[in-house]
């Protein structure tokens, strides 16, 4: 199961990158993917059974929309901060609680915080994230979590757990 998922992923990426219909291309792709899954196949998806549950995909699509919106907004906010005289910033580090357990989920959460308006992840520990915030509004962990993550953490919990 694990091996199959990794194989489909690798072969898909290979086909997208090369984008040709040559039979030799298929054979090379299959051989290389097989070699890679023999070596690394066991290390990937932690819960292979999760890939068969459609509600996770729906939640992930929802996450993508929230993420894209946040990212575009982040860019305009950043552009405003860069262009206004005497940059309107008040930087500081805040600690926010992290209740997501899955490693992949944590990576995606940290990355989406980095691309969200005005924040970026500096460090991660077992149960908290240290976030550098370019305009500190509150230092209370729970309120800060609400302001920085919004719904993202809940959606990712749906996707990965």
């Amino acid at each position: 199961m694990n091996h199959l998922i990794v194989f489909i992923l690798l072969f898909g990426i290979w086909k997208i990158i090369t984008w040709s219909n040559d039979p030799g291309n298929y054979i090379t792709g299959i051989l290389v993917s097989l070699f890679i899954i023999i070596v690394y196949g066991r290390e990937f998806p932690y819960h292979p059974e999760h890939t068969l549950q459609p509600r996770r995909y729906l939640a992930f699509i929802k996450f993508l929309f929230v993420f894209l919106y946040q990212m575009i907004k982040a860019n305009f906010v950043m552009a405003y901060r860069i262009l206004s005289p005497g940059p309107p910033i008040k930087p500081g580090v805040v600690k926010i609680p992290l209740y997501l357990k899955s490693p992949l989920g944590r990576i995606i959460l940290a990355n989406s915080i980095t691309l969200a308006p005005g924040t970026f992840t500096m460090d991660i520990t077992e149960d908290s994230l240290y976030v550098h915030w370019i305009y500190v509004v509150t230092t209370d962990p729970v309120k800060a979590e609400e302001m920085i993550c919004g719904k993202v953490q809940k959606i990712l919990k749906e996707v990965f757990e």
Partner: protein
Amino acid sequence: MIDIIFYIFMSIGLCFVFLGCLGLLRMPDVYCRLQASTKCVTLGTGSVLLATLIKTGFSAIGMKALVCLVFLFLNSPTAAHALAKAADISGIKVWEKPGDEKIYPAKPRPTVDIDKE
């Protein structure tokens, strides 16, 4: 028509890349500079890649641009995080605006001894 959309996306992308570089010059410390460059350069480069995809359509080049776009969104925050963590470990403090020194909340995490890790 495709050409017009291509030029629009390309100009947006170049504007944001330029803003990212300007941010690098204007921000006071390493963390703020990372913020500026990560965010603006991600959307800027993403937009340039998207323009390439629109111009060439779903050909070998266009699909490579699409894959680059996905990897860019995965890599750029990770690189920023690595730089920030390295800066943190080597003891660079967060810049404080002169005048309001009291806002500094969460003590940054305990410094790690590099030799031990």
